[in-house]
């Protein structure tokens, strides 16, 4: 006797999800089938045992811990700038959380935007370090200056209107550069900020198991408490072309690209991972801006 159907009905009955017809059918079967009758009893027992389960009071540390983290995050943003990495062109500024969704809808000044931070000299010759700082630390918005003709311009303009919101440009040090077999599920060139294990795993889903494990092993919930990953996928006609991630802001990442005089002509696909902290902001896609050397 194929009882599988009736097992499903038994489960549905526990949830009161049987039609009259199904109920009749099930009752009929139970009269004839010892096995299903026994299982029905057991499922009932499990059901009532679960229903009996008492609710536990959460420990005080739950709420306390969360509030502490919220306050710590705000304090951290108010303190002065940190310099990341060792690359030149390290004009490092700390910004308020200005996360942009993929849809890039303009976000107004919310309560989470943090206060002014100090800008650090020296300025060197990176392209984006054309920003200038006035005496009181207010910044000019280079994105607006460059007049990017995309939806982001609107946001940049909104940003420059409010002197409390700054761009976060940083020098990052790539931690990993993995060669991929092909772009697989990745777009030709992609860049993302990843702010959680979930985001990371979702982004890395096209990778094969081994490569995926290699990456995810290092970056766990502990890392993402205050850390962020910048992930860039590039596809080049030669594996001899090298890359260096030099900075990012809300909408784009800058990648330096060195094409040697001579090199191999094999198609190479790379996944570059750079580590950063909460200042990178929330998970989002970034445009890639190439800096040719």
């Amino acid at each position, binding site marked *: 006797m194929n009882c599988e159907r009736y097992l499903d009905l038994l489960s549905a009955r526990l949830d009161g999800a049987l039609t009259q017809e199904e109920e009749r059918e099930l009752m009929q079967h139970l009269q004839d089938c*010892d096995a299903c009758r026994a299982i029905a009893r057991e499922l009932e*027992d*499990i059901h009532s045992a679960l229903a009996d*389960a008492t609710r*536990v009071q959460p420990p005080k540390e739950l*709420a306390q811990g*969360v*509030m502490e983290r919220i306050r710590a995050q705000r304090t951290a943003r108010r303190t002065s700038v940190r310099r990341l990495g060792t690359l030149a062109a390290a004009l490092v500024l700390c910004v308020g959380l200005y996360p942009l969704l993929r849809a890039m809808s303009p976000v107004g000044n919310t309560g989470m935007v943090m206060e002014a931070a100090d800008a650090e000299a020296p300025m060197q010759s990176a392209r984006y370090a054309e920003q200038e700082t006035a005496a009181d630390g207010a910044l000019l918005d280079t994105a607006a200056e460059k007049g990017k003709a995309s939806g982001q311009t609107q946001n940049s303009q909104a940003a420059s209107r409010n002197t409390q919101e700054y761009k976060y440009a940083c020098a990052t040090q790539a931690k990993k550069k993995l060669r991929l077999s092909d772009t697989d599920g990745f777009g030709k060139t992609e860049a993302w900020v990843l702010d959680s*294990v979930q985001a990371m795993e979702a982004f890395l889903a096209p990778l094969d198991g081994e490569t995926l494990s290699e990456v*995810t092993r290092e970056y766990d919930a502990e890392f993402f408490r205050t850390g962020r990953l910048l992930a860039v996928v590039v596809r080049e006609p030669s594996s001899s072309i090298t890359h260096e991630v030099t900075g990012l802001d809300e909408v784009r990442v800058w990648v330096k690209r060195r094409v040697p005089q001579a090199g191999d002509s094999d198609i190479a696909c790379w996944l570059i991972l750079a580590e950063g902290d909460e200042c990178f902001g929330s998970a989002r896609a970034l445009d890639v801006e190439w800096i040719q050397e």
Partner: protein
Amino acid sequence: MTEQELVQRAQKGDEDSFARLMGENETRIYNLTLRMTGNEQDALDLAQEAFFNAWKGLKFFKGDSSFSTWVYRLATNACIDHLRRKKRRQDISVSMPVVDEEDDRPPDIPDERYAPEQVLERKQLRQAVTRGLEQLSAEHRQVLIMRELDGLSYQEIGQLLGLEAGTVKSRIARARLALRKILVETGNFPPGPSS
């Protein structure tokens, strides 16, 4: 103040309003993470993570669902992530979690111990079911907790997980049968005639 009002204030940065939202949801969320992970430390960490993510993501919260549904979803996602990572990290493939030192219950109990009419004490069964729940796959555990412990409907579960109600229905059936199988294997139910 309604949940909506609290959310609006919290979105503007009002920490006290957020603290109140937490107060209203922490029991449900903590019980969810506790049932999903089976241990208090992980449950605490994941519940905190869910609320902290809720705080960070507040500006994106559009109010399509209620705040409590949203944070519930964040929590259950965090639990699944955690369990998957834990599973991946394990070098040995285990189908049963590490057993407490005090628990010296043998995994197999011979048939003769059980008379067909014997019924386990309610408390014993409850404990066995809780232990059994922890041995289920993350996905099975998740739907059973949502259905049995939090009383969510197939529809509501479907919305939380992005599944059709019909899929939820059969997943719950599979989960119940898997749990039953565990209880049989651990000697809590007599094996009886197999179907």
